[in-house]
């Protein structure tokens, strides 16, 4: 009972932040190369491939968050196996073909110098790696490890939310210079998530 309430609460929080991310994505509809984040990417938007990759990233990544509502549910997994399977394929295809490769390109052009570039590109590489591992374990029907790697993959997906949340909290408390905040959250945004994922996996496997 207690865990049901907790589950519901977590899903509600996820829904709220997914909604905020939807709003962030919608800032680029109708598309304009000086909207929101692109306003401070004056040099980058002149590179021929930057805007196409930016569009791939912004308009596909949002859908990956949806996986969080269905794929971790034991009920859907057992009662509606096909739903789990199709949505899982969608998650993997969108992530591997669009969101992650475009994320790598954007990461390469990240503001803040090599520290934030490294952070975002490492995030992209780990995102692809964990998702491929998860896929291969699913094919081998090694469900335990499939689940473990999907927990890691989704933890990295959630960095879209946690990065902005860290930024909000850090600015709220310390008011640092914008770029200092950015360099910090480029790492915090996914490393913390990955640590939490490992804790979850460790506790799950111990049971």
């Amino acid at each position, binding site marked *: 009972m207690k865990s049901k309430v907790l589950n519901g609460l977590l899903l509600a929080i996820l829904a709220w932040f997914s909604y*905020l991310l*939807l*709003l*962030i994505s*919608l*800032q680029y*509809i109708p598309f304009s190369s*000086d909207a*929101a*984040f692109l*306003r*401070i*990417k*004056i*040099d980058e938007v002149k590179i021929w491939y930057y805007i196409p990759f930016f569009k791939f990233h912004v308009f596909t990544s949002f859908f990956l968050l949806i996986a969080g509502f269905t794929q971790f549910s034991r009920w859907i997994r057992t009662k509606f196996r096909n739903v789990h399977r199709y949505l899982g394929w969608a998650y993997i295809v969108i992530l591997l073909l669009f969101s992650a490769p475009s994320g790598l390109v954007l990461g390469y052009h990240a*503001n*803040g*110098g090599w520290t934030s570039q490294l952070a975002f590109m490492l995030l992209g590489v780990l995102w692809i790696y964990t998702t491929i591992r998860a896929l291969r374990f699913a094919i081998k029907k090694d469900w335990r490890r499939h689940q473990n790697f999907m927990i890691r993959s989704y933890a990295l997906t959630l960095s879209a939310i946690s990065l*902005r*949340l860290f*930024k*909000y909290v850090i*600015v*709220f408390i*310390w*008011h*640092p*210079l*914008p*770029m200092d905040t950015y360099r910090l959250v480029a790492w915090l945004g996914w490393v913390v998530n990955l640590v939490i994922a490992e804790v979850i996996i460790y506790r799950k496997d111990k049971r």
Partner: protein
Amino acid sequence: MKNLILISVLFLAACTSAIKDEKTEKENPATAEPEVMEDFRPEPTENLSVQSREDLIGYWVGWFEHNLSETEKQALYDVGDYPSYNKINISVDRIEEDSVFGHSVVANNNRPFKGVLESTDAYYAFDVLEPGDDKHDGRFKFRIERNDSFVNGNWMAFDNTLKVYKRKYKLKKRIYKYDATNELEDWFVDEEKHPERDSIDLVNLLDGRSWEEALKSFNGHSDSVMQRMTQDDKLEELEQLLAEINETEYEFYMATDMSVDLNSSTDTLKGEVVSEMSKADIYILRNSIFARHGYSFKKKDLRSYFDRMSWYIPVHANIRAELTELEKKNIEILLAYEEHAEEYYDSFGR
């Protein structure tokens, strides 16, 4: 169906207050509509002291201070108000016989005047009127001794219900020439007299007053208390006051060294450099371009900041045509970062 999608997209997009803040309106002479006002530029002689009538032609620049009595001033203080002062430029454009024509520029207000000039062996005395169709119009009276380099005078508003209806000034003749290399002065470097701060917040706090005067009115000290306090005590109190004012948005709104080390009229500002700046840096650097062109600012904080630069003279209320290509580029990039910071610095979105 297509319409339905579009409507819902627009509706959702309207909820953006959850992810970003509102932009404020900018004072941006780079895009402002050109004014119709005839901008007369006098051709002054090089003489900074007045040896002949010709030497009177030109810009007379200095502080336009209130001339209120102690009780009138106190009445303003009591309602949490205080008379501000600004740099004024009284331009004597043309002298014909005993008639004089000119204009004054202060606080983004460029107003013509005309009147009479009284010449004696000892002095020149001016008595000139503004047109009277603006509520801040009035009458300037000023005089200068022969061979002197200071003009002394006063100004009375036609409308004596204005908050500050009379003012005084002591002006020096200045030759204005656009100089891209004019540097921003770190004007709190004298630690004996001033706290070591280069901040637009302090400028706002002072708002034309000396910092001791500001301290006195903010903390409600009497004259005798102020006299008993040591310089260190006062500085400490001022620091506290500033910290309180900036309680929530301290660092970000403080200018860093970048605002004085860079020159936005001569350096090409790259995105990677601007992205490292605080909002105050960006704000100061963008507006310093206009200041170098002698733009007279509308906004109080900008006036207070640039009025204190020794090279700054308010010359025009419209400088759009004067900007160089480099400056236009820098304004564009600074404005992009300034607006982005305003919307996204402390919000969830980006």
